[in-house]
């Protein structure tokens, strides 16, 4: 059975871009309906815009990717508890492979701790999945930046 979700990468990025744009613009007009009067509200507005951007991107990708699922889950939990709720994943320490020095570099890559902290949901992924998710995450992040830049430039005119 063909998996209809397996679009070609260029085609799906265009779809993600347009879904993100629609969702983000809608969120921006929602945010804009309340005019901030106090400094505190202005600060909150910045956060709302940022959250809207991340949420729109994660929704545009949907549940297709582990990183977007992790981000959507985190946002749902945050909304529910209104607190900084960290999802603590089981940090499975990878077994250090005994062996030659040749493998040392790949060992370090298998750990990839820094990367795991940056990619949503990356803490408990095995390395191949982490690298795959990272590639997609980067594509989506740069799409997000491009769209937000276009919108900001437009409003600056």
């Amino acid at each position, binding site marked *: 059975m063909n998996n209809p979700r397996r679009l070609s990468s260029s085609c799906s990025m265009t779809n993600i871009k347009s879904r993100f744009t629609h969702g983000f*613009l809608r969120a921006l007009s929602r945010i804009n309906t309340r005019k901030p009067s106090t400094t505190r509200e202005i600060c909150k507005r910045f956060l709302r815009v940022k959250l809207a951007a991340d949420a729109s991107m994660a929704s545009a990708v949907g549940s297709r990717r582990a990183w977007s699922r992790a981000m959507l889950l985190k946002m749902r939990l945050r909304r529910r508890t209104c607190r900084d709720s960290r999802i603590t994943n089981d940090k499975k320490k990878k077994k250090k492979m005994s062996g030659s020095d040749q493998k040392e570099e790949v060992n370090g890559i298998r750990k990839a701790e820094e990367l795991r902290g940056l990619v949503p949901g990356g803490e408990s992924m095995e390395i*191949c999945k982490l690298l795959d998710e990272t590639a997609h995450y980067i594509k989506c992040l740069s799409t997000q930046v491009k769209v*937000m830049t276009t919108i900001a430039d437009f409003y600056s005119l």
Partner: protein
Amino acid sequence: MSSRRSRSRQQSGVSRSTNNNITDDQITDLVSKLQQLIPEIRNSRSDKVSASKVLQETCNYIRNLHREVDDLSDRLSELLATTETDSAQAAIIRSLLM
């Protein structure tokens, strides 16, 4: 007959206890795929970039992108205060982007 295709394509039965199912070749393949996406490395086309450098540059790049998103959110929240968004403008933006 269609079994759930796991995301990591060439894997069958990824076990967490041993790393033996994942070959170093698969990892280097994925790392080189990542390499193409990082502008830092793509532009300075040196012959061989070590995998750990790719990872390092990837982390830096992701952090830069996060920072850009923050800056753009800041800029947008200020701009929102001064403009009225309406559906016509939204349509214009959409047409700019498509």
